[in-house]
């Protein structure tokens, strides 16, 4: 255990382990030192200087975020000079910031706005030095507005160090030094995997999703269009936070009610296709295990991960499940299965999804995602966009009645729900694979070893199969692409031998997706994961093979898991991509 050090923060005595930053020590002493570039999840860059404090007996100041405490240190977090300093720094940052607060994505939650107000900043004190720059909005998923960027460096750390995607870099230096894409080619032509973690961590409005709100409103208000909606498992874990309700409870019934009030013609649920994914992917796993196919099998539901794999690990493409993501399975079925059932012209159907994810916007636009004969998913809204639409429509979300999803593609089990948390797909797959291989349900459906916020989780379980006897199943769950990279390198080098691997691009899984509320911390993500597990526990059916709607779909339309029709509609193939431009250069796996 690290040595305990005693120090004083504004005369309050506090004891913390050696290595603690002044910032954290101050928190313990009940003092929040103002910060701007700092985020608790990320390495302190010490860029902005807002968190400076004075230390008795020392000249100058120290940055609280990146200075470790020492024994007997006496810290002052507030003084005339420090206030003056913080105010001046903020004025200088604003001098290079496009101030358009009322229309900004981050209005009312912007950290710069907050601090500017708190410190009584007078924007006019400094000459404006901003030079207008073009907004980069060619990407399917992310819009980057350098005019608002304050060069805090959070997006860089997330993109380079946490996600190891390297789609962002700094061009030049000094005041002219700007965060941009490699060789200034724009997000579309960069290795960006659209995970959107940069948007979550941006403290101002410089990074946000490419919005589809207008297109969705147009479709909803167009009588010709039949608008169908699906909602991802993870968004129900965050709506409570956004609408001022219990953040520890999932919000389902009110979500359906709100969607109906927005004017969607049919309200389904992505959880349905999450269960469907398990049937397909579980069958694929069992087939590979039985027939000696390529192992480990790696999950494919996270489109950020898929593009990452195509860019950095195309040699492992054959390991990746051929299953489309739940969103895309759903999209294909809406314009085939559902259209058939309802005698609707698929050309008139507008398929909308609400996702915790920005990469889903890119995925929906992949040219191969048109197995229905149309673009399978027309528009993807993030959680944030959905919340904005509800608020714009003046819907009193909190007081809405609890409603149910529509039949046919609305039913789901607990297995579908936990897709939203890291380890959830793994757990759901194990529940069903066990059932199929052993012929009975698992005694304990809670597979704790794959739950939780640890970056890489490993587990080993013995499955007493009917046909093959006892089978040892080694599984691994990684979330965050930096962790995924490590696991892929282990697989490449043969250092680890897994049978089944779950990868989610975003830390925490989909509850921590790039389309979730701005500023989501790891702690928020962990809490959201827990609320999904809670819903799972409370549901009558907790295994995908118990989903009646899914079984009906097989009976009436798809025949059986991994049938020819299922392969045609629910499975896909992968490309190799150029790591400089992100461009697909060749197919590395092929359609069945």
């Amino acid at each position, binding site marked *: 255990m690290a040595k305990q050090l005693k120090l004083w923060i504004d005369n309050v005595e506090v004891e913390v382990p050696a290595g603690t930053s002044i910032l954290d020590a101050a928190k313990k002493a009940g003092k929040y030192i103002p910060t701007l*570039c700092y985020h608790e999840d990320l390495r*302190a*860059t*010490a*860029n*902005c*200087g807002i968190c*400076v404090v004075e230390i008795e007996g020392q000249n*100058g*100041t120290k*940055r609280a975020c*990146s*200075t*470790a405490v020492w024994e007997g240190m006496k810290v002052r977090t507030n003084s005339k*000079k420090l206030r*003056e*300093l913080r105010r*001046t*720094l903020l004025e*200088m*940052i604003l*001098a*290079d910031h496009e101030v358009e607060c009322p229309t900004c994505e981050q209005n009312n939650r912007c950290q710069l706005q907050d601090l500017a107000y708190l410190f009584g900043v007078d924007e006019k*004190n*400094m*000459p404006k*030095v901003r030079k207008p720059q073009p907004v980069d909005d060619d990407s399917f998923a992310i819009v980057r507005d350098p005019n608002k960027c*304050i*060069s*805090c460096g959070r997006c860089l750390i997330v993109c380079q160090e946490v996600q190891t995607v390297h789609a962002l870099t*700094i061009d*030049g*230096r*000094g*005041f*002219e*030094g700007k965060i941009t894409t490699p060789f200034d080619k724009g997000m579309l032509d960069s290795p960006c995997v659209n995970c959107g973690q940069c948007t979550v961590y941006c403290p101002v409005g410089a990074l946000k999703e490419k919005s589809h709100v207008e297109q969705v409103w147009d479709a909803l208000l167009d009588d010709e269009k039949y608008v169908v909606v699906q909602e991802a498992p993870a968004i129900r874990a965050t709506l409570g936070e956004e609408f001022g309700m219990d953040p520890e409870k999932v919000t389902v019934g009110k979500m359906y009610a709100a969607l109906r009030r927005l004017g969607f013609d049919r309200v389904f649920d992505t959880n349905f296709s999450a269960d469907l994914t398990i049937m397909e992917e579980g069958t694929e796993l069992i087939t590979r295990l039985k027939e000696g196919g390529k192992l480990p099998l790696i999950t494919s539901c996270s489109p950020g991960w898929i593009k990452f794999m195509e860019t950095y690990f195309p040699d492992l493409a054959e390991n990746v499940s051929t299953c489309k993501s739940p969103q895309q399975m759903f999209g294909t079925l809406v314009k085939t299965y559902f259209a058939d059932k309802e005698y609707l012209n698929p050309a008139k159907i507008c398929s909308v999804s609400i996702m915790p994810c920005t990469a889903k916007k890119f995925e929906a636009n992949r040219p191969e995602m048109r197995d229905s004969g149309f673009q399978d998913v027309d528009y993807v809204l993030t959680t944030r966009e959905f919340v904005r639409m509800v608020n714009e429509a003046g819907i009193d979300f909190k007081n809405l009645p609890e409603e149910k999803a529509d039949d046919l593609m609305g039913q789901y089990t607990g297995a579908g729900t936990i897709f939203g948390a890291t380890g959830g797909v793994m757990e759901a797959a194990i529940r069903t694979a066990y059932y199929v291989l052993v012929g009975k349900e698992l005694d304990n459906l809670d597979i704790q070893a794959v739950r939780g916020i640890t970056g890489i989780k490993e587990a080993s379980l013995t499955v007493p199969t009917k046909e093959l006897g006892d089978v040892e199943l080694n599984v691994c769950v990684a979330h965050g692409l930096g962790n995924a990279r490590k696991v892929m390198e282990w697989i490449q080098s043969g250092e680890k031998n897994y049978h089944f691997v779950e990868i989610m691009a975003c830390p925490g899984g989909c509850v921590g997706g790039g389309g979730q509320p701005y500023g989501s911390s790891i702690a928020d993500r962990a809490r959201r994961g827990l609320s999904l597990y809670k819903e799972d526990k409370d549901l009558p059916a907790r295994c995908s093979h118990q989903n009646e709607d899914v079984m009906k779909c097989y009976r009436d339309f798809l025949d059986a898991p991994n049938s020819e029709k299922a392969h045609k509609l629910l499975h896909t193939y992968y490309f190799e991509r150029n790591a400089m431009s992100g461009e697909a250069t060749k197919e590395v796996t092929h359609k069945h």
Partner: protein
Amino acid sequence: MKFYRSHILIGIDDESLKAGVKRIENALRNELEKYELADEINIMETGALGYFGTGISMLVYPEQITYVNISEEDIKEIVQEHFLKGRVVNRLVLEEKITGMYDYNYKGRIVLSNSGLIDPEDIDEYLGTGGYEAWEKALAINPSEIVEIVKKSGLRGRGGAGFPTGLKWSFTAPLEADQKYLVINADEGEPGTFKDRLIMEGDPHKLLEGIMISAYAIGATKAYIYIRGEYKLCISRLKKAIEQAKKYGLIGENIFGSGFDLDIKIKIGAGAYVCGEETALIESMEGNRGTPRAKPPFPGVEGAWKKPTVVNNVETITNVPAILQNGADWYLHFGVENCSGTKVYTVMGDVKLPGLCEVDMGTTLRTIINQYGGGVKEGKKFKAALVGGAAGVFLPNKLLDVKMDYNNLKEYSAVLGSGAILVMNETADIIDMLWSVIRFFRHESCGKCSPCANGNEVLFKLIDNIRKGEGKKEDLDKMIHIAEMMNLSCFCALGQSLLMPVKSAIDNFRDDFLEKIKK
């Protein structure tokens, strides 16, 4: 070994090469042969002779006569008159009574003792001056003793901050590590500073010897010289010197049976002033953008590739051989209390003889400018000197008699910095000069921290407005305020040090600013 009646030292540097010094050297050689003087008169190539703007120059030794602005046509006359007839060609002689590098009566030439006198590309010449004796001596004693000697000598870092060198070493020397590094900061980028270039061009072996001793003292088996990419001649001379030292077994494995290994490598920069900051330099060495790291951990504990690393300036390390050879007490005789030794200054701007000189610490600014720089040129009056480079201070007339050493200058909120002295005459416009200084910082800020990146930009905007006659009186205090805030909050010394030029220019020459604003 041959004995010569006279030696002709020809200064070879980038500038003289450009002016065709080789052509003139050949003409001289031919001319001497023509009169069968080749056996009597030795021609030696050496580094820069220590003054600039004087075209191709050569120094005749032992007569101590310097010919300047020599053209090919003059060669005949020089040979016939001087070497045949013993008559000095007065029209080409450097008239100014300057001392500079060639003050032979001054015993304090430590760093520059060989510069301009030996052929820097020949290790034997360096050996002939007693070179590498200190290295041999060092290997015979305990490394910790060397640290003590340097500590006692009072040697302080010559890169600008003036941190005691022995103390710096004493943090790293006792650390146990599988690898330690010595890094020589030869990224000389402070505007107006070119002393390290001339040390390296003129006497590369002395630097190498200093590196050897210092590396041994701290237990570093790998040393890097991080040198700016523009210094092509230095790079090639140092490479040659390293090769020679290797050949002579001065570096390599188990040097002289001591059990100590040392490898010296050169790392090349690519144009970034901030890399003069030691942690930024380390980042750059590792192949990254040269942005500074947080301290602590200090490089002495966790530096290059996370290993203990001592970073020292070229001039600092070049002092080490003499300290070891002659002892700490000898070194303490030079300079003033708490600031021992000599300092190499570069004097330039509106002076008669821009160049460099090595003088005792504590020598006054007036002496340096008048005696070594030849005074203000064209009979103009002195207005100000920017002392210490861009990160320095504008000193007015009334401070000309300030003693130049680390401690004393602090009392005037000034710094010795890298030893650059830019002299401005009465016609110089301080506003223009400050504008130029801020433009420099704005260009060189690494952009890592916003106080520096944005602060420089805002300051530049303000000074630019003032320069254009659009400034306001309040802008002056605002500028000082911003620079003060930057001083308190910038991540590294680059942004912190802008306060010195800004405050000194405005405080010492406020009337100039006000006049401009009124217009």
